[in-house]
């Protein structure tokens, strides 16, 4: 009885203290927000990408903010789950955010109607729904830089450049969720066009075991190329499985979310030599923005963490930069800033490169992707090195597919 009493008192005190301090917070700043996965299936990515976003915003605020306004970025943990992602969005909405990052393709799908209704734009760089390229059908969703369809196009372009002919056997190994399945329509289309033999191999969440699939790819199908759309835990497992089965890693191309240092490290750098991956943002510390961030850490007396300059961290910085750019462009439409103004701001982004992060990105009200450029990197030594320049593969196929996909959406839309 005593224990229970003290426990109750302690809990009540903690809750009261926390709530009273936590609630007191009212600054006149521009609020933006996003979810983050630090404990769920993609936490390998989340723990590097989210600091990238917050560090960049911190840098911008240090340099005086956006046209004098400080930016306040709120990150809400959602464990890569749709229900928690939706709850996070509602919380951000109540806080008054004008722009969000929706982390995770399933979450993007779930939140799309809400973004349309609430008129708050969401960016989904390098993931999300590829059909939202068409800004007229999906005004508030921005699959910036390179959607999954553009990535698959790039991978297939590389395969063709490396000499794949009609009858070549391609295996599409994917994470069995909306994000993974996003790549299916485009890869089927391209394979049909080129006369490749294509087979799909699904890896169920969270992608821990794929032995039979890899055995099938290596021994039964005897595939020439593998396009892998895995993320989180699964890329490292796939690397090990391919090695165990004896499949050459330099014929495995991973889409952007399986191409990070963390993945190669988890599989072991020695085991991952030759593994190919797509990037949509530059890698490394040799970029002006990254150097500034490292300097900022030094000014605070801290060493920049190991992952600064890495694949996922840099993407986080890019995300932060796109958010900031949207806010900056949106402010020219007047204050106070609203979601609609940020949307128009995004659509005014022209020739955006963030000092060498990506080829110039131009977003228009019709084209919400702004480019679709990817670059192939390969694991050599203990890092990822580029093997091609920025390419854009099968662009016309991608656009055609977007139009076809949206024909259905245009009919369904009135119901929303």
């Amino acid at each position, binding site marked *: 009885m005593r*224990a*229970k009493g003290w*426990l109750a008192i302690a809990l009540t005190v*903690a*809750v009261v*203290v*926390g*709530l*009273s*301090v*936590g*609630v007191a917070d009212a600054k006149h700043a521009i609020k933006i927000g996003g979810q*983050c996965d*630090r*404990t769920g299936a993609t936490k390998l990515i989340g*723990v590097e990408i*989210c*600091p990238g976003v*917050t*560090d960049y915003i*911190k840098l911008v605020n240090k340099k005086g903010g956006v046209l004098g306004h400080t930016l306040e970025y*709120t*990150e809400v*943990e959602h*464990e890569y*789950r*749709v*229900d*928690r992602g*939706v*709850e996070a969005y*509602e*919380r951000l*909405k*109540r806080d008054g955010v004008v722009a969000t990052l929706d982390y995770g393709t*399933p979450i993007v*799908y*779930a939140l799309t*109607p*809400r973004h349309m*209704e609430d008129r708050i734009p969401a960016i989904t760089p390098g993931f999300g729904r590829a059909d939202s390229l068409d800004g007229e059908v999906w005004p508030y969703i921005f699959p910036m830089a390179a959607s999954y369809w553009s990535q698959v196009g790039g991978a297939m372009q590389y395969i063709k450049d490396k000499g794949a002919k009609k009858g070549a056997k391609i295996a599409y190994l994917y994470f*069995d*969720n*909306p994000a993974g*399945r*996003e790549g*299916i*329509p485009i890869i089927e289309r391209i394979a049909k066009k080129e006369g490749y033999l294509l087979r799909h191999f699904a890896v169920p969440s969270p992608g821990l075991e794929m032995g039979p699939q890899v055995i099938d790819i290596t021994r039964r199908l005897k595939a020439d190329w593998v396009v892998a759309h895995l993320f989180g835990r699964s890329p490292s497992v796939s690397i090990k499985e391919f090695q165990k089965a004896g499949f050459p890693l330099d014929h495995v191309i991973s889409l952007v979310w399986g191409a990070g240092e963390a993945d190669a490290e988890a599989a072991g750098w020695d085991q991952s030599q030759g593994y190919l991956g797509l990037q949509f943002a530059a890698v490394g510390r040799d970029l002006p923005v990254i150097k500034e961030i490292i300097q900022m850490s030094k000014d605070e007396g801290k060493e920049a963490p190991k992952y600064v300059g890495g694949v996922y961290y840099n993407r986080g910085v890019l995300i932060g930069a796109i958010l900031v750019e949207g806010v900056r462009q949106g402010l020219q439409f007047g204050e106070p800033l609203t979601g609609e103004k940020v949307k128009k701001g995004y659509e005014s982004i022209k020739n955006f490169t963030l000092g060498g992060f990506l080829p110039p990105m131009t977003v228009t009200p019709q084209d919400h992707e702004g480019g679709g450029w990817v670059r192939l990197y390969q694991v050599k030594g203990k890092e990822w090195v580029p093997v091609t320049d920025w390419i854009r593969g099968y662009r016309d196929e991608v656009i055609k597919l977007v139009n076809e996909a949206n024909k259905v959406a245009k009919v*369904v839309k009135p*119901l*929303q």
Partner: protein
Amino acid sequence: MINRECGVYQTTYQGDMALYPLPLAKISYALLLLVLLALPLAADSHTMAIMNLIGLAAIGAIGLNILTGYTGQVSLGHGAFMMVGSYTAAILSSRYGMPFWVGLPAGGAVAAAVGAFFGIPSLRIKGLYLAISTLAAQFIIEWCINHIPWIGGGAQSSIYVPTPTLFGWPFNTEYRRYFMVLPVLILAYVGAQNLVRSRVGRAFIAIRDRDVAAEIIGVDIFKYKLLAFAVSSFYAGVAGALWTYYLKIANYEHFILSTSISYLAMIIIGGLGSVLGSVFGAVFITLLPIVLVYVVEGIARLFGFTYASIADFLANLRLIIYGGLIILFLAIEPEGLYRMWGNIKRYFRFWPFSY
């Protein structure tokens, strides 16, 4: 002093059999109802969202408590039955244009059928073996919905549902959705309270307590076990369908194994074998992550940390505290919040005497 039974007498059978015969109970429930109805006037959108989440969770928790708390059949597949209801409602509404007041009971009915089917093993096995078979149900149903395109809506396994409307009045704000969730919750709650007082409810409790003895006195345990599964899955299906209409999307990730475990945690912390306990548990588990983030952030802010530096720590702390609270509750108060509530009521009832 006010909470007493003497001096209260009934003159009709109906009065005697009423759900809340004491005047104090009647008044307090009426007041509660009034507060709940008036809440939208005073609260902001986020609070309404939280109330909605609690309401949705409570419906599911009540269902699970009927199966696990009253009938003693541990079920780890509750999330899967919610999934069934959710997708049924989504298919009916998106493909066949049914309104939500058809989708809800339909979702419940289909889930009840599926639940009864997965309850069939209960004829031969009991206890933990049954729990493990419900675990299998969880995975099998998840797999079916994911891999049968007709159910799962094709390659993307999410189905959009148009905004639910009632006579042309759309439920498109948190305030309006509150009035979609609240009536269902009230119906569910009153229905469950009456169910457990009825003959069927007594059969459930008999099965939980000593099923062989129950069979001897003439309770058909197979029929009642299946009924328990069916009723519990009906609640789950309605809850799942309501989730679909609330989120306007049906997605299997809402209802994975950790969801089933959350519901189990809700009823255990709330109190096995009590409907009110399920609601307490739902409130507790739904609020836990939200409160936790505020509290830890607040305390950290006192010491000068920003969110970014403790984000990792916070995310994992939530898991630890969640698990730790479950263990703590089971060690200190195994009968849950409902028992604590009962203790409080009893204290005031006997005040100023201590026993």
